């Protein structure tokens, strides 16, 4: 196991003539909570998909948990968990059935899966709705369930693509408490968001705009550097000035 969870250089992805991700470079240390910020359409989801082995990059190089993203996608998949911004569990299956299914998909033994379900259910307070069809659950509960499924194989790294979209503040707070605890246990967390209060919880952030990383660093350092009162102001001024310059 390496101390660097993600190491990426000049990673790019083009869709036809459109460049969704334009030569981004970044490193994420093990056990870090890394925030990936940007407006809608900035290229966050494309970037995260390339890191998870879901999408082939068109250029650049990268390593995730020590494996090459081109050649060792299968090894990466075994060691990471992924939660997409869209609810993507089977809605007609219950939470438990979804977890069992993914447990088997990761090749885990039945007893191991059952133990994992028990402990996740306890940590994420799932017990009251784990046996209901997941599609019928309120959004906040669904997100927790999706998180539980992405953790079923105890991954060393977690990719979360706007995990708290459409969730009320109380649920968001609880969700982040869980992320903190995971980070303390040594799980690296790579999370995209456009909630700036969530960005403040991150150890380090990078801000993406039109496929490029335009700023990066620890939140307090960035505030000092740009003399901004909070991350929201910083984000708006950074992106806003570029929109004007670009227009």
């Amino acid at each position: 196991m390496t101390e660097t969870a993600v190491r990426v250089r000049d990673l790019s992805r083009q869709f036809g003539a459109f460049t969704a991700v334009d030569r981004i470079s970044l490193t994420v240390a093990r056990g870090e909570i890394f925030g990936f910020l940007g407006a809608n359409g900035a290229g966050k989801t494309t970037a995260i998909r390339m890191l998870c082995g879901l999408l082939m990059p068109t250029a650049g190089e990268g390593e995730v948990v020590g494996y090459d993203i081109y050649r060792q996608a299968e090894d990466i998949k075994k060691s990471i968990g992924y939660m997409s911004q869209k609810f993507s569990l089977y809605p007609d299956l219950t939470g438990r059935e979804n977890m069992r299914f993914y447990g088997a998909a990761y090749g885990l033994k039945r007893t191991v899966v059952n133990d994992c379900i028990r402990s996740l259910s306890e940590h994420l307070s799932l017990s009251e709705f784990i046996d209901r069809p997941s599609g019928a659950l309120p959004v906040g509960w669904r997100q927790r369930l999706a998180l539980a499924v992405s953790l079923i194989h105890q991954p060393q790294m977690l990719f979360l693509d706007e995990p708290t979209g459409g969730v009320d503040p109380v649920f968001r707070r609880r969700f982040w408490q869980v992320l903190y605890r995971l980070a303390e246990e040594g799980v690296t967390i790579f999370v995209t968001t456009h909630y700036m209060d969530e960005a403040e919880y991150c150890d380090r952030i990078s801000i993406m705009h039109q496929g490029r990383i335009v700023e990066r660093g620890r939140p307090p350092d960035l505030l000092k550097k740009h003399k901004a009162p909070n991350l929201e102001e910083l984000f708006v001024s950074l992106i806003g000035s570029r929109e004007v310059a670009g227009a």
Partner: protein
Amino acid sequence: MRRIRHITRKELYHILRDARSLAIVLVMPVAMTFLYGYAINLDIENIVMGVIDLDQTQHSRALAGCFYHSTYFSKPQEEMDPTDPERVFREGRASAVLVIRSGFGRALERGNSFSLGLTIDGSDNNIAGAVRGYAGQALNYFLRDRLPPGAKLPGVIIAPQVLYNPDLQSSHFFVPGLVAIVLLMISALLTSVTIAREKETGTLEQLLTAPVKPVEILLGKILPYVFIALFDGVLVLVFAKLVFGVPFVGSHLLLLGFGLVYVATALSIGILISSLVRTQQVAMMYAMMFTMLPSVMLSGFIFAVKNMPSLLQYLSLIIPATYFLTVIRGVMLKGAGLGELVIHGVFLLVLMAIMIGVAAAKFKTRLA
């Protein structure tokens, strides 16, 4: 293996918990069998035939009665106009007119030759052909009854013997074929949406973040439908027996074995389509297009493959129903055995292997 088993179980949950797919599984095969079984009926009955009896003897009346006695002919609703026999054709009230000139009774008593007039509306050539055949038979029966015992019918006659389907009932020919078509359609329809649906809902993206191989996904998705389709096959066969009285001469087990291979081939068509397209709607459209039309027209379901132009004959070789039709008709009607049919099974297996191979190659573990 464990992954395949769990994907299979998950698919079963999807089917059992979705009313729409349950309906496809349970209602559609039966409904289709009924519909096709009754609609595609080449047995022609109740042909309306008018009789113009100018002889007016007991013999001429007995002859007319002999025709109407069978289920093949029935009387027109109005009286015939002896001066214009064709009027009933133009008005569409009858398909044939039998004219018995005067002198028929006398000729019959004396054993003289006599010719009856039979005018047939040829605009529907199926009916016209049937009228010719049936009328000849009816006349033979009539004459045989009236000849003294032991007398021979004049001239040389052919004594045809029809094997396997002695009554020449078209349901015996169609219903086994129907099993083939229904199985193919249901199988292809069911599987064609499975992967496409996961693409639409985004669940495939989640599944692909797990270390699952394409072939595991494909096989896991095919497996549950093999059992479902076989169940449907049995359902349709039971209906064939109860409703249409189709005989089953050969081995049930042998047919089940071939059914398994055939269904798996049909499912591979669906899986192949599903792995290539993005939406359920397109998948269903292709599934219908690629299974329904070619199988009905080119497999020998209605038209014999041997009578087709050679290009279409080659085309029929890549249609799975072509092989299964021969097998199911052979087993059900003729009692054919494994030795005679094994080659068809081999062809089906080859088709299946090709389709699954292409599907696995085309199915990407990365998104486009």
